[in-house]
C-alpha cells in the first residue's frame, strides 16, 4: 500500500545552517508529493507540491526534488531562519484515492 516515511522526529540546528528534512515514499502509481508546514497553534498549510514535469518547486527559500528512482522528496533550504521552526509533514496523494501523511518532523532553529 501507499506510505510515507519521515525518519526524523526532531531536527535541531543553528540559524544560518542548511536544512534537509527527509521524506521517502512507497506507492504503486506515480503519486503527487507535498510538504505541509504547521506553525505552533496554526493549521497546516501547503509549502511545496511536486510537479509532473520534474521541475523543482520552490517557496520561501525551501525546495524539494522528486526523485522517482529513490522514491524521495526531501525538503531543503540553504540557510535556516528562526521563523522556520515548525512541524513539517510530507504527504502523498495517489490516483487510487489514497492520501497519506508522514509522521511529521519538528524543526527547531536556534539562535
Amino acid at each position, binding site marked *: 500500500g501507499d506510505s510515507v516515511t519521515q525518519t526524523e522526529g526532531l531536527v535541531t540546528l543553528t540559524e544560518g545552517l542548511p536544512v534537509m528534512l527527509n521524506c521517502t515514499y512507497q506507492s504503486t502509481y506515480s503519486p503527487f508529493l507535498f510538504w505541509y508546514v504547521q506553525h505552533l497553534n496554526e*493549521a497546516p*498549510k501547503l509549502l511545496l507540491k511536486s510537479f509532473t514535469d520534474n521541475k523543482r518547486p520552490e517557496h520561501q527559500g525551501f525546495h524539494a526534488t522528486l526523485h522517482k528512482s529513490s522514491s524521495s522528496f526531501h525538503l531543503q533550504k540553504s540557510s535556516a531562519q528562526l521563523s522556520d521552526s515548525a512541524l513539517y*509533514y510530507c504527504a502523498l*496523494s495517489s490516483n487510487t*484515492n489514497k*492520501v497519506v*501523511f508522514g509522521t511529521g518532523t519538528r524543526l527547531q532553529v536556534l539562535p
Partner: protein
Amino acid sequence: ETAVFQTPNYHVTQVGNEVSFNCKQTLGHDTMYWYKQDSKKLLKIMFSYNNKQLIVNETVPRRFSPQSSDKAHLNLRIKSVEPEDSAVYLCASSRDWGDTQYFGPGTRLLVL
C-alpha cells in the same frame, strides 16, 4: 485569509456524550476531508467527501460519522465519545481529490 471555517474552536465533554463539529469552505472546492491530529501530532485522515459522495472511509470507529448537506459543508458527528477521542479535529478542502489541501483552524476536543 481564512477560507475553511470550523466551529467550535474548543469543546469539553464527558464520556458517553454526543458531539458535532461543523466545517464550511468558501473556496468552491469539490472535496472535503476530516483529519484527527493526536497528542503526538500524528495526522490521520478519517473521511473525505467528493461532491457529497464518500470516497474514502478509513477504518475509524463506527461512532464517528460524516454529515454533508452540500459540497461546501462537511460536519463530523461522534456518538458516545470516549477518552481516546480527545484530539484536534482538522477539516480541509481541495479543488479536486488529492489536490492541494486547505486546512481549517481545527476543533480541539477534550473528553473527561
